[in-house]
């Protein structure tokens, strides 16, 4: 085997990869917690998710700093350059996913009258979590086929979200027209708004997972195909 030079540099790159994945795992935990608190109404868990966002932000700033240091001090080129540049972008997507998880916690605290759209938030959440998990694994292992599959599967998430939003809107209209049932129009409106926001947030989680996959594809093959 060829002896490795620039040992410290190499170690910094390896550590960056590990720590970006570590940040991703933490963000996934928050996303799962946010979803669970939303479906169970667990207020303590919701507060945990909301308060945990500061820790994610700190890790984000630390990783951003380390990427900048690598650019400035080690001047990475070729595959290393694409790895650091991709990581620099990916941590922003992970940080945003954590923000969206925090939103879910807030919706859980705002109360829920048990309204369920045609496609359950839990089902949408599972698809979103799956995309984030897979995008992290793709980044970790440099799996380009997985990147393409993630982008394709995000369309499925978008379709689910659309169906959920439409069914909520239909419910709202029908209840308004009928006038009876267990909900008053005002309470129903609050509830529908919250669920619509949750659906939109989960759809965005999927978009961020696709961004992670897109940057990974660029990182591995210098292929910008999935970047918008």
């Amino acid at each position, binding site marked *: 085997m060829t002896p490795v030079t620039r040992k410290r540099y*190499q170690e910094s790159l390896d550590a960056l990869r590990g720590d970006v994945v570590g940040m991703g795992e933490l963000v996934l935990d928050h996303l799962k917690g946010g979803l669970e608190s939303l479906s169970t109404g667990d207020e303590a868990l919701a507060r945990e998710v909301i308060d945990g966002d500061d820790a994610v932000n700190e890790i984000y700033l630390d990783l951003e700093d380390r990427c900048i240091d690598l650019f400035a001090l080690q001047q*990475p080129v070729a595959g290393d350059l694409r790895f650091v540049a991709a990581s620099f972008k990916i941590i922003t997507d992970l940080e945003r996913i954590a923000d969206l998880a925090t939103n879910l916690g807030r919706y859980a605290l705002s109360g829920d009258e048990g309204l369920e759209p045609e496609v359950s938030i839990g089902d949408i959440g599972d698809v979103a979590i799956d995309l984030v998990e897979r995008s992290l694994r793709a980044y970790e292992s440099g799996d380009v086929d997985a990147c393409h599959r993630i982008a394709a599967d995000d369309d499925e998430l978008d379709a689910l979200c659309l169906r959920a939003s439409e069914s909520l809107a239909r419910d709202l209209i029908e209840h308004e027209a009928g006038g009876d049932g267990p909900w008053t129009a005002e309470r129903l409106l609050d509830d529908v708004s919250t669920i619509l926001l949750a659906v939109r947030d989960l759809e965005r989680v999927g978009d961020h997972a696709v961004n992670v996959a897109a940057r990974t594809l660029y990182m591995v093959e210098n292929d910008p195909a999935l970047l918008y």
Partner: protein
Amino acid sequence: MSETQSTTASADSTEQAPQTTTGETIEETRSEWTEYEFDGQAKLTAEGLDVFYGDDHAIKDVSMEIPEQSVTALIGPSGCGKSTFLRCLNRMNDRINSARVEGSVSLDGAEIYQEGVNLVELRKRVGMVFQSPNPFPKSIRDNISYGPRKHGDIETGWLARLLGRSDEAAEEELVERSLQQAALWSEVEDRLDDNALGLSGGQQQRLCIARALATDPEVILMDEPASALDPIATAKIEDLIDDLSEEYTVVIVTHNMQQAARISDQTAVFLTGGQLVEYGNTDRIFEDPRSQRVEDYISGKFG
């Protein structure tokens, strides 16, 4: 990278990839890695160039086209043949007795390795700047006018006719213009008769560039022109190279890969064994090299 050279596969193992003498399989080079398409004219073209120093095969079958009015960087580890290749471009290797050159180098389509080529004229068209500044131990003014005088341009009045001046005025103008082009004029205009050896290293190097420009070259070859200079002097030389490329074809050998990345339009990577392994747009070479060995070299990851 080890200093061992690749050995060609023996007859009974022609399907195997080349190996180093330590038995390690090394990547085979591919011709498409060195095919570089560009807009505009080629100023210099090497075709199937081989150089031997005695038994040492210093350059192996190198073909490349160097676009005019641009900066081409040649990079690679020590002993890879990049300086040898540079010296082939104005036949400086002719001065080394044991050197033997095979193949072709053409300047504007005309072969420079053929009988009857006037070497003085060739080197006037293809000037050179070396690693250590080497001004003549003469005045700043004389350093500039030496070349044109030697070529007879001043005595024959060629320059004077060109510039519409008397010989003396033409010389003054040439000295000023060359020093201006080399971004040195403002620092030396009031001491043109001082000895050039009294200048700082960076100033001496810019004087050498001014001296090369004074003979009105078309190509300027630079062999590690900034390696002996501090960062400020280096930055001045780099800015100068950038300016020069608007008018001249610049070919530069450098060990400093960041310098190559900063200043060149295209980069050629030579690796041990005198092979040109990859050649292309500088952006592409530094962002997405095709060859794993080139990637390892520019990332500093070879041992």
